[in-house]
């Protein structure tokens, strides 16, 4: 049981780290603001989500696990809104450089 939990943690956290890598590479290499935004949201949603899922087997109390999920849900909420705001700003004014 412990072993299955540990394997799940390693796999999921590694996948999450890969998405953060992808998000960074995308942010640095994509040609314009909209595509960079696309890369950013992948890191926000999937990166953090997979990390939280991977950490769940390691936490031994239900309130602790719920707290982790709460952090993820709040980040999702904030991230989705920021995506909309940024997209609107880029669409309207080219980002005000």
């Amino acid at each position: 049981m412990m072993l299955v939990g540990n394997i799940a943690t390693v796999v999921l956290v590694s996948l999450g780290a890969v998405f953060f890598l992808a998000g960074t590479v995308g942010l640095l290499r994509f040609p314009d603001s909209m595509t960079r935004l696309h890369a950013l949201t992948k890191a926000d949603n999937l990166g953090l989500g997979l990390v939280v899922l991977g950490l769940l087997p390691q936490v031994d109390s239900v309130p602790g696990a719920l707290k982790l999920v709460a952090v993820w849900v709040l980040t999702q909420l904030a991230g989705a809104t920021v995506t909309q705001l940024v997209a609107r700003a880029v669409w309207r004014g080219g980002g005000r450089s």
Partner: protein
Amino acid sequence: MSLAVLADAALVLLVLGLALWINAASRAFPAVVGYVAFGLLLALAWLRLSAGDVAMTEAAVGSGVTGAVLIAASVRLRAAETEAPPLAAAPPALPLRLLALLLSGLVTAALAGLVLWTTGPAPSLADQAVQHLPGLGMGNAVTGVLIAYRALDTLLEKVVLLLALMGIWSLAKDRYWGGIPGPSRIQPTNGALILLARLLPPIGIVVAVYILWVGAAEPGGAFQGGAILAAMWLLVMLAGLRDAPAISRPWVRLCVTVGPAAFIAVGLTGFALPNGFLSYPDSIAKPLIIAVESVLTLSIAVILGLLVAGPPEQEP
């Protein structure tokens, strides 16, 4: 070298590098974004040093609230930055900057030397501090120090916050005194932002109360909880769901003063007891501390929110 040491070294290099870059940045806005990132990294460093309360305060106030103020300021200054050189101030001469670098470097070296080359543990009152905590009903030594042992410092800090707010209000033009912060009322047109401003504050309030409560035993407390509440209030104002209040409104004046006033009142009643100003009678120490902290949280929230909102720029 263990992984932890490597990670710590990387964090230190990152923090130093970012600090140097922020100073060298040529425009205000990139420097401000760098500052927000810097606050985040600093919070991580504090955690690695086992200073959870400082980490939380750095994340909430240093990076969050202060970052918001700086972002708003740098957006305002954008117009001034593109002005011709006579209007923008010339940077100080090179010898002066080298002297500043030299002196700062000397101070850093002296501090590093003190830390690295003194032998034996540093003199500390930590043991005695922890010893008396159960009498106050606390588990968190930091909160114990802030509210009980060095309550005078905390009180003065809150008064300083209030003075800072009055300083910001004093920037208003005469005819706007007592008016509404911000150049214009925000119209609620941004759907995504309105959704966030409706969903997040209820959660934020619960988390703020939790952080205030848990501050007795774990990292947390009045300041961090107040900062979260302030951020939620600002979110609602920025989305246009509620207007910023005119600073002449009685409830505004009441909220910003009730925290320090309650603290002072509790402190003054200490004169009736043998230990003097700001001493808590043992039997009711914990409820008293909780009451003072709750009222302080409210005041801090309103003060920080109004600090970010800025000086009044509309008629009341």
